[in-house]
């Protein structure tokens, strides 16, 4: 058992922290939130040059041959920096899913472009009224037409769909238990996008498919058997969100402790008062426990071990732990923390979005209950 990073991971972490410290100021984050696209093409290309998109992909597709655990280090730093843009969508939702279930031909076709930073991918999974990540909630239909398929219906909360080149669309191909994942050209004119205004200022879209044809060759994985692949995608996405959140709350703990040391009232730092000290201690406990449970699940995922229960534990825990962390962070920061002048709100808003993404604590508690044999 070991809880420390390897030398290589430490280097990656340092590079990422320095790079993002330089390129991803809160001014930049704000600009991206206000912009239409939500990302900077220039920064995207620089990240591609650093090999970040390809980090966790095999060398034969142009990747860095590193593991999910290495990617976890990078995601943590991105969470720490509140990095805007389609990295998560492209790599965690798109690329790793193609790597998982795509045919060799599909991998050869799509992964090198993704890794070079040329193409943006995302996942179209959730739907209106959908909040229970199960197969029966998928109603967008792909009907057979002359050997090909026609997709119709509305997907919701699809991150970065408006700038994506490809969508992984989870659709129903059979009335009962028949789910198939399609790789769709996102620029097809029969798709309509509306960007929603969200708490995190990220770009979640409503995506409407209007009788959109998809060739049979664009099925990812197996026809009608796509749900087990989708579950794995959801599991990995939840894990990725946990990694981002660890970076987020770690940074918030540091900001809050620094503030408690500096801010003086009654002629002494407020951090010398026990009430504040105990708040900080509670925050640190939530941060460390969230880190370890996330790392455990990320390690298992990285090792290819079955980790449904551990992912569920990590996501359920961090969802609620992070809310406790933010309640205390705001209380300790006082009124300045609820103004837009202070950076805290960037983290607060993102943590709430991440808590809701890919299953909240109640959703994962039910999975834990099942794993316990209840």
């Amino acid at each position, binding site marked *: *058992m070991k*809880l420390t990073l390897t030398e290589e991971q430490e280097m990656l972490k340092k590079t990422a922290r320095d790079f993002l410290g330089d390129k991803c100021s809160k001014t930049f984050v704000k600009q991206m939130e206000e912009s239409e696209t939500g990302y900077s093409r220039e920064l995207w290309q620089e990240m591609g040059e650093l090999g970040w998109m390809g980090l966790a992909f095999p060398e034969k597709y142009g990747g860095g041959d590193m593991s999910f655990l290495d990617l976890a280090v990078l995601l943590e730093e991105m969470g720490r920096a509140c990095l805007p843009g389609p990295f998560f969508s492209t790599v965690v939702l798109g690329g790793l899913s193609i790597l998982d279930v795509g045919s060799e031909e599909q991998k050869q076709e799509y992964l090198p472009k993704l890794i070079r930073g040329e193409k943006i991918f995302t996942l179209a999974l959730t739907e209106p009224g959908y909040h229970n990540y199960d197969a029966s909630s998928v109603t967008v239909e792909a009907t057979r037409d002359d050997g090909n398929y026609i997709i119709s219906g509305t997907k919701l909360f699809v991150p970065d769909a408006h700038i994506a080149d490809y969508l992984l669309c989870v659709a129903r191909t059979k009335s009962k238990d028949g789910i198939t994942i399609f790789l769709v050209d996102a620029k097809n004119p029969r798709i309509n996008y509306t960007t929603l205004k969200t708490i995190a200022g990220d770009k979640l879209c409503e995506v409407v498919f209007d009788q959109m044809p998809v060739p049979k060759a664009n099925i990812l994985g197996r026809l009608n058997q796509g749900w087990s692949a989708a579950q794995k995608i959801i599991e990995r996405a939840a894990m990725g969100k946990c990694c981002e959140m660890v970076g987020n709350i770690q940074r918030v703990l540091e900001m809050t402790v620094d503030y408690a040391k500096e801010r003086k009232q009654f002629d002494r730092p407020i951090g010398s008062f026990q009430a504040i*000290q105990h708040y*900080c201690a509670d925050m640190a406990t939530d941060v460390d426990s969230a880190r*370890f449970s996330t790392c455990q699940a990320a390690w298992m995922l990285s090792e290819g071990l079955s980790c449904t229960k551990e992912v569920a534990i990590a996501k359920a825990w961090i969802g609620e732990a992070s809310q406790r962390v933010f309640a205390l962070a705001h209380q300790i920061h006082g009124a300045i923390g609820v103004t837009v002048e202070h950076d805290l709100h960037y983290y607060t808003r993102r943590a709430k979005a991440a808590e809701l993404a890919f299953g909240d604590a109640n959703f994962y508690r039910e999975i834990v209950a099942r794993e316990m044999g209840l």
Partner: protein
Amino acid sequence: MDFSFTEEQNKFRQDVRNFLEEEIKKGYWEPACDAWVQGFDPEFTKRVARRSWIGLTWPKEYGGQERSHVDRLILTEEMLRYGAPAACHWFGDRQVGGAILSFGSEELKKEFLPRIAKGEAYFGLGMSEPGAGSDLASLQTRAVEDGDYYVISGQKTWASCASFARYFDVYVRTDPEVPRHRGISEFIVDAQSPGLSRIPMTDITGTEAWNDVFFDNVRVHKRYLVGEKNRGFYQVLHQLDYERSGMERLMGNYPLFEAIIQFAKDNKLSQEPVIRNKLAQLQIEFEVGRLLIYRVALVMEERRAPNWESSMSKAYSTEFEKHLAGVAMEVLGPYGQLMSGSKLVPLRGMALHSYLGSKGYSLQAGTTEILKNILAVRGLGLPSS
């Protein structure tokens, strides 16, 4: 990062499980809550010692096995999982042995460590006093030099395992003239010494959980001074780090945890969404706490005292224990109020015992408030108040 155990560690865990299952099968004892601190079974301790499982991390020359702290955590985790009656050796193994090893003279190491490891020397603690709880440095029990001896007078309280202890690890004031942290020393005192008397105290579960220990001119030879004279306060802080470090803070009531899950399954309560949700939350909290405690073992493995890390894990874990007992009482409904021995009592009264017992967990070995102070000041670098 690596969350796996080595093959040897997995085998070791299995060996411990096999041993404990065999013990239960033979009817030697029943799994019980709080058995690590209330299960006094000298024969069990002897059988554990024969497997060389006491003092596992100590040097071989003193009867140890030089195994890792993670190995020891595996061992104690399994002892707790099975609710094994390990109280006779728990304190010597967990902290007093380590204190002697860190600070004691060669003579003391040779006299006590092999006997703890053989399951012969049971230890109780003499730290708190009626007027010195969280503010331990205010303790008043005095030791006065008299030739080759110290003469101890005063009262200790909340002494766990004291009824069975053959020795006490006692902190007393040896210099009242200096600032209070600098006038305390640590001694090992034979429980049979003339002038030493014990009066049991009953806790709200009805258990004789502690003793008041009175010292009336108890003579202790100088060679039983542990470490340097007047350095006792610094030594006790070190020892407390170890006292707080272990899995017993999370798993003291593990038999109840297993039983209440089984009860919910057997009675179809587990199909009720509210109960499913609560039991799953307990499982989540348990698994998360377990990782906090393994982190502590890894800190010890680096030869560092697990200071704020064990404060964190202990404060966290005692909340889990309270939550577990609370949920168990809820699941049992009105049956939860039935005491052990009553007609219709479910789960041998474990839930009620834990519910009442868990009120004390966040007080013993450092209150949660003290632990949060330590975490804030030493872990996060906040200015002391």
